[in-house]
């Protein structure tokens, strides 16, 4: 657990310290990649809460989604279609759904715990 926190901190610091400049049109790809990674992260959390979690699925999904989103946006730019909007839409919807599921699960867990405590008590 502490190793992943360390990795996060290291990544944040690396990102903040990186002084590399990329053209503004590639910033879109990065934002989509960020969205994809967040979606995968929350999906992983939901899966964990639903006891469906799989390391391989999570890790491969994480990287694959990032690459897919960026590639889709790239393709869209070159085809003249705003495909990154589709990626944003899909990931955005999934993100909200995942968060909603997580909230409900947590709430259910919390109420269950309370109830059991009350019943026990």
């Amino acid at each position: 657990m502490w190793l992943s926190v360390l990795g996060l901190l290291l990544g944040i610091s690396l990102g903040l310290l990186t002084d590399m400049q990329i053209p503004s049109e590639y910033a879109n790809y990065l934002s989509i990649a960020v969205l994809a990674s967040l979606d995968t992260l929350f999906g992983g959390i939901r899966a964990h809460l639903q006891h469906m979690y799989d390391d391989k699925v999570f890790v491969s999904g994480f990287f694959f989604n990032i690459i897919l989103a960026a590639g889709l946006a790239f393709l869209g730019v070159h085809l003249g279609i705003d495909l990154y909007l589709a990626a944003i839409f899909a990931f955005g919807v999934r993100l909200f759904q995942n968060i909603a599921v997580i909230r409900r699960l947590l709430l259910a867990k919390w109420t269950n715990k309370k109830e059991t405590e009350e019943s026990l008590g």
Partner: protein
Amino acid sequence: MKKLHLNNRAKWSKSIIFSLVFLVLGFMLSYSYSLSKSQEETGDFTGGAFFEQEEQYRKELIEQQERNKALREELGEKQAAVQKFEQSFLEGESHETDFAKEAEALRHALGLLPVQGSGLVVTLQDGAYNPDSVNPNDYIVHESHIFQVINELYISGAEAVSINGQRIHANSHIVCTGPVITVDGVQYPAPFIISAIGKPDVLASSMKLAGGVMDQLVNDNVVVTLDEGQTISMPAFLTES
């Protein structure tokens, strides 16, 4: 926490994978954050800088144009001055020969150059000794006689006059000192040879006018000889003495 029961190796590999995932996630988040921030800044900055630069260039352009204008005006002035100068030079060129001639004539008049030419030679000699006369002043040549002759010669158009070879000029002084005459500090005894350059016939006829200089001189017992055929050469007046 079932996973704690897994063996150490799996746990380690899992946490390494997680840390890698989180590293990538953190990197991407912070990088996109810093990127958008810097883009905002640079966007603002570049916009401001662009306008600033444009303003600066415009100012520079205006300055340059003003300077060009000033320089053009200066050039015009200079060209006008040059034209004026050239004009005056042209005019001056046409006058130059006249000036040179005038300078030559003036030098001649001042006696600064040796001259040569036809003219008249007037010789004044003391009269022969007269035993009847008590006063020898009655028959010797006086400075007034010489004055008369010189004045007459100048009036008749003599260009240069000399006495016994001594050039006469505007500031010459002729003094009678007893039996001799001092011309500019140099004493000369009689006879006095007064040479004048000019038209010989005019000079001679003016000398010979009835009741003129010649008659007066003869009246004063001065022996006058006129010689009008010679070519006379005179030295330049050099000494101021």
